[in-house]
């Protein structure tokens, strides 16, 4: 079965990876001609998205198209295979890259950033890595792209090159590399040593090979080793990454990087451990409580942040734990809910970051306390902010409702009443910290003496954020299709 362009799924997988790789080279080579370079970037993003979509029909039909690149060690391959979760993550990352590419042209030029060629090239490598993570057929392939994603985003975080950026970059690299090499890799090697495979397999690979005691240790190693999922106390890298230019925060630190983390958590839980095996481990509950704590604690920290991007970052930390918690509930409902939340939160949070960047470009404001009355100057931006905020909160009529619905259903289903309460509490906290900026912007008079009329950010900034805001609205109605796709995890 093929998609719109009639390309075989296996070929489309390779093209989806190849396109950003080639795009990186072209971007690096055309640095002297900014217009050409940026055109290539957008074209790369769009082509990649199309290629990812080519894979969709076969996955929807229940297939698992794949391709083996080469054998690394005997029995261990670099291979790709697309299952529903990977399909969803791949579509989200590549689809939102198209919008971010447009946005980043407006932002980087509007904000007068330096070294745009390096920036765009690293961005393309990051998307290449995200795609590799999404489509990985085994844990080893995933790990390679996971590391590549960390390395390729480091220059983006430290982009400005000043002391704050370098310090942020260092924290970023130290925590992500430290956890992945210190915990995750060792868990991977131990898994390989004990089970003889690292393939993502329905029902997991641990059962019958790994005792429950060792399995419990491995679970902790995996969950903390996947530092990109930002479980406390290894969450500091995410706020640190906020020194990056906003397009990075928007696509990478609200979507590609962090979602790669929780995506990996879901993959490991369902295809390495398997839900049945997971439910028998003594540490599953432990990680669940850690996630619940992170979820609430990060929300409380978010309330205290005046810097808008910092607040959004802590909000992301909190939202990521929704998904980890979902995985640890060990219920099909919650797992699907986690998968849905990857999408819903991606749309909501990228909108919010786009808005934060647009506000910065148009008015150089970074703090919430400066944003009184901003709604009159930037009605489109702040309107989109409202929609994005509602989506993250999970209020109707936004897509975020459905993912939270399923997560809470999963918690109720498994009898975890406390977790239901945690979700509820966090939702209330979400309302507090996400709606205050909107309320101040629309209802309070300007506190900076601004008397002028409408003054929006550049068109290329406002267009993408409007699209994502509307997207999170559309998702409310399209959630059924998403559910059907994700249900394939357990039926495929």
């Amino acid at each position, binding site marked *: 079965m093929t998609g719109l362009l009639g390309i075989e799924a296996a070929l489309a997988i390779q093209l989806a990876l190849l396109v950003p790789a080639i795009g990186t080279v072209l971007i690096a080579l055309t640095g002297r001609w900014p217009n050409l370079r940026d055109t290539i970037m957008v074209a790369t993003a769009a082509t990649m998205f199309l290629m990812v979509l080519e894979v969709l029909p076969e996955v929807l039909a229940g297939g698992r198209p794949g391709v083996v690149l*080469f*054998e*690394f*060690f*005997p029995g261990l391959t670099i291979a790709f295979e697309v299952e529903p979760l990977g399909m969803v993550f791949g579509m989200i990352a590549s689809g939102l890259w198209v919008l971010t590419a447009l946005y980043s042209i407006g932002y980087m030029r509007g904000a007068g950033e330096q070294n745009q060629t390096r920036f765009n090239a690293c961005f393309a490598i990051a998307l290449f890595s995200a795609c590799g993570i999404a489509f990985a057929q085994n844990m*080893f392939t995933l*790990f*390679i792209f996971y*590391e590549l994603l960390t*390395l390729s985003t480091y*220059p983006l975080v*430290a982009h400005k*090159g000043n002391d704050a*950026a*370098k310090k942020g*970059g*260092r924290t970023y*690299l*130290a925590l992500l*590399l*430290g956890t992945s*090499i*210190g*915990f995750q*890799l*060792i868990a991977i*090697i*131990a898994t*390989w*040593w004990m089970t003889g495979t690292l393939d993502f397999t329905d029902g997991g690979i641990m059962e019958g090979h790994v005792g429950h005691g060792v399995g419990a240790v491995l679970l902790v190693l995996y969950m903390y080793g996947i530092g990109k999922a930002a479980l406390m106390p290894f969450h500091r890298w995410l706020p640190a990454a906020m020194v990056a230019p906003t397009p990075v925060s928007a696509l990478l630190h609200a979507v590609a990087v962090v979602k790669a983390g929780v995506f990996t958590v879901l993959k490991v839980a369902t295809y390495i451990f398997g839900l049945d095996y997971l439910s028998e481990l003594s540490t599953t509950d432990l990680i669940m409580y850690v996630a619940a704590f992170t979820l609430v604690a990060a929300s409380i920290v978010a309330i205290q942040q005046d810097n808008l991007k910092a607040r959004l970052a802590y909000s992301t930390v909190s939202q990521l734990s929704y998904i980890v918690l979902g995985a640890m509930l060990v219920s099909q409902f919650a797992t699907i809910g986690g998968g849905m939340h990857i999408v819903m939160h991606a749309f909501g949070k990228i909108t919010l970051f786009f808005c934060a960047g647009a506000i910065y470009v148009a008015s150089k404001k970074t703090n919430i306390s400066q944003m009184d009355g901003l709604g009159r100057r930037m009605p489109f931006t702040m309107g989109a902010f409202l929609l994005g905020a509602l989506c993250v909160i999970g209020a109707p009529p936004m897509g975020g409702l459905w993912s939270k619905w399923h997560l809470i259903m999963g918690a109720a289903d498994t009898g975890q009443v406390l977790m239901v309460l945690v979700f509820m509490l966090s939702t209330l906290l979400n309302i507090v910290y996400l709606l205050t900026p909107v309320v101040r912007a629309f209802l309070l008079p300007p506190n900076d003496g601004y008397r002028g009329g409408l003054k929006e950010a550049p068109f290329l900034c406002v267009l993408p954020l409007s699209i994502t805001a509307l997207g999170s609205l559309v998702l409310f109605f399209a959630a059924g299709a998403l559910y059907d796709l994700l249900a394939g995890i357990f039926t495929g």
Partner: protein
Amino acid sequence: MDVFLTQLPALQVVLPMLAAPIVMLLARMPRTAWAVTTLVCWLTLGISILLAQQVFAAGTISYHMGGWAPPVGIEYFVDSVNIIVLLIISLMGAISMPFARRSVEQEVAREKHALFYAAFLLANCGLLGITITGDAFNIFVFFEISALASYALIAMGRDRRAVMSSYQYLVMGTVGTTFLLIGIGFMYIMTGTLNLIDLAQRLPEVNDTRTIRAAFAFIAVGISLKLALFPLHLWLPNAYTYAPSMITVFLSATATKVAIYVLLRFIFSVFGYELSFDELSMEFVLMPLAMLGILIPSIVAVFQTNIKRMLAYSSVAQIGYMILGISFASLLGLTASVVHLFNHAITKAALFMALGCVIYRVGSVSLDRMAGIGKQMPWTMAAFVVAGLSLIGIPLTVGFVTKWHLILAALDGGLWPVAVFLMATSLLAAVYIGKVIEAAYLREPAEGTEPVREAPLSLLLPTWALTVLCVYFGIRTSLPLDMAGRAAETLLGGYL
């Protein structure tokens, strides 16, 4: 042709040995001296490759020097273990020679060029001789040939401290080889033979004597000095730091590797697994020293501001990884160690070559002078980054292949804490390499420094050749892993 092919083991050593005096006579024609040396180095590589083909096609080669049958005559002996080391030495010689021309022209006085290349050939010959010979006394002699040549080469560095560090190396190196000689002497007294295979057959009868135990201790300590096993590594950082760039490249890739090979030969082949591990429990000596040797020099490396010195300490740490693999005394552990001989050789040589490029343009590799160099020398620093990732052990580089197997070996031996330790220490490499990358790319050049151009092609090409190898063998892992696996099997099987 057949005559030529049967004489390959001798030619491997004799060719650079005989070329050395000829090169020395070319004192007035430094370019010719360089050209002859380069030719010889590439021929040496050709011989190694032919030998490798023979070994893998027909098995172990035994060559009787002068037609005298062993154990009376001297035997040269090529098997699946030392062919790897021969390949490493001759490959490094061949790749570093094109690099040498511009680099040596700048760093060594013109009238000394012929001497330099002659000494280089002798060092090369000595290392190849240690590796290929099947005679214990020969090992000592070649150790001295390579060491004396290395002392001279290191002393030719630009910095005046080079002389002092060469002297330091001389003192420590001489103690090492003397210990080795004493050990060999004890064995000779007890068995009446110097042939390694013959020794392996005769030693079991006298294993329980104090003399043989003492010989074992002398040899182990002597070689440990030569291979810079922590805490006997003190000569290494200075020697690597102040030697001419090209010599740092060559020695870091070969000298310690050869010493490790000799250690492997003695403890597995000559003394045998039973004596070394079952009776004398070498693992309890090697493992703690290896782990300390990984940890402490890695930490010291983090605080270095001279990047050459930083990488020198890193070399000590990497030697720790190889010794750790040996201390597992298992097939997996030995495979990891042997493959790391090769992996570390190409990784570290690539890094030192990149630094050689920087020295060629900037004249210094202090952290401050490296600031902002990433933009001025993009190709050089890109090579440094890639090779640096290999040193850290990022997937798809050769460094990762080693790390993977070392950790598997640790788990296989039931040593979970060691596996965790390995992971943690590899992060230290990330810290010191990260410091260099950050300075090169994120810092602005200091006020008042002249911007420099990219290094010339003759320096860049060898650097990138090695860098590409780091990635190529990090992806196509089967060739080095197969060879290392066979070597490990051979070692565990002993000579018999």
